C-alpha cells in the first residue's frame, strides 16, 4: 500500500524557496498563508543547513487527535486531509502540530482567524471533484498520477515526495554514493527492504562521520 511521505535532504537544500513558490502558484494559496516554508538553522554561519517543511502527513496525526469537530481524514494512500466546510478555525491543530503546518488566513478587518489551510500533498481535498474544491484546497495532482509540485520542481532534488519506501530507497542510494551513512535514520531507510542486504554493505564500510 502506498504511504505518501515527504523527505528533505538537508545536504542538498540550497534555500532557494522554489518549493514554496511552486506550492503557492500551483494551489493558488492566499496571501499570508504558506503551506510550505524553508527553515534555515545557523543562518549565515558556515555549515548552515536548510530544510523545507510542510505537513508531514503523519501516520498518527496529532492534529486529527485534537480536532474538536473531527474534520481530519487520513486517506488510504496515507495523505492527511481536512474538510474546510467543517473546520471552525479554533487553532487546536496548530498547537498540536510539531511542524507548524496548519496555517490560518486572516479574514476581515480585525484579523479574525479563518478556516485552517495546510498542505494536501497535492491531493485536492474531500468532496466532489469540481471548481469549488480546487478553490478551497488546490490542485489534485495525485489523481493525475503526478507528485506534489514542490518536490517535482525542486532544482537540487533535495525534497523528495512519494511512497515512503520508494523515496527512502532513493535517499539511501544517495547516502551510499556520498560515501557515508550516518545521515540515514530509521530501520527502513538505513537497511531497506529485507532483500537488500548486499546493498547495505557500502554504508557500513563508508560510515565514518
Amino acid at each position, binding site marked *: 500500500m502506498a504511504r505518501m511521505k515527504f523527505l528533505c535532504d538537508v545536504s542538498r537544500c540550497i534555500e532557494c524557496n522554489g518549493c514554496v513558490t511552486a506550492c503557492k502558484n500551483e494551489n493558488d494559496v492566499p496571501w499570508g498563508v504558506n503551506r510550505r516554508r524553508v527553515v534555515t538553522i545557523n543562518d549565515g554561519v558556515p555549515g548552515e543547513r536548510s530544510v523545507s517543511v510542510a505537513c508531514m502527513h503523519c501516520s498518527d496525526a496529532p492534529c486529527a487527535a485534537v480536532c474538536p469537530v473531527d474534520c481530519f481524514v487520513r*486517506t488510504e*494512500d496515507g495523505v492527511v486531509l481536512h474538510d474546510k466546510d467543517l473546520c471552525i478555525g479554533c487553532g487546536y491543530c496548530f498547537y498540536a502540530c510539531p511542524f507548524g503546518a496548519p496555517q490560518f488566513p486572516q479574514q476581515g478587518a480585525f484579523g479574525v482567524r479563518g478556516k485552517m489551510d495546510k498542505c494536501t500533498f497535492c491531493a485536492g481535498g474531500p468532496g466532489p471533484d469540481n471548481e469549488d474544491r480546487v478553490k478551497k484546497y488546490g490542485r489534485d495532482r495525485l489523481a493525475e498520477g503526478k507528485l506534489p509540485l514542490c518536490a517535482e520542481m525542486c532544482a537540487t532534488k533535495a525534497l523528495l515526495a512519494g511512497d515512503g519506501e520508494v523515496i527512502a530507497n532513493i535517499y539511501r542510494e544517495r547516502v551510499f554514493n556520498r560515501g557515508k551513512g550516518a545521515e540515514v535514520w530509521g530501520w527502513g531507510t538505513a537497511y531497506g527492504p529485507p532483500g537488500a542486504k548486499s546493498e547495505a554493505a557500502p554504508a557500513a564500510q563508508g560510515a565514518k562521520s
Partner: protein
Amino acid sequence: MKRRAFFGSVAAVAAGAAVVGLVGCGERPQVIEYKQGKYQGKPYSEPWKGKQWNDSKQDWNVAVDTRAQNQNEYKRIK
C-alpha cells in the same frame, strides 16, 4: 496462621502490582484507526477512482512510483 495470611496478602498485592506494572509495557498500535462515523466531513474519493485509472489501484501505484523515480538522478542519468 496470622503470619501465613499476612504473607498471602503481601504476595497478592505484589502480584497485583506486577500485573499493573506490566500493563504499562503493552504496545499500542501507532497508526490511528478511524472509527466509522468519526470523520465528520465529506467523503474523499481515492485518486485511482477516476476515468484515467479505471479504478485500478495497481496502475495508479505503478504510475506514481515510476514518477517518483524521476527524483533519482542516479537512475535518471544513466
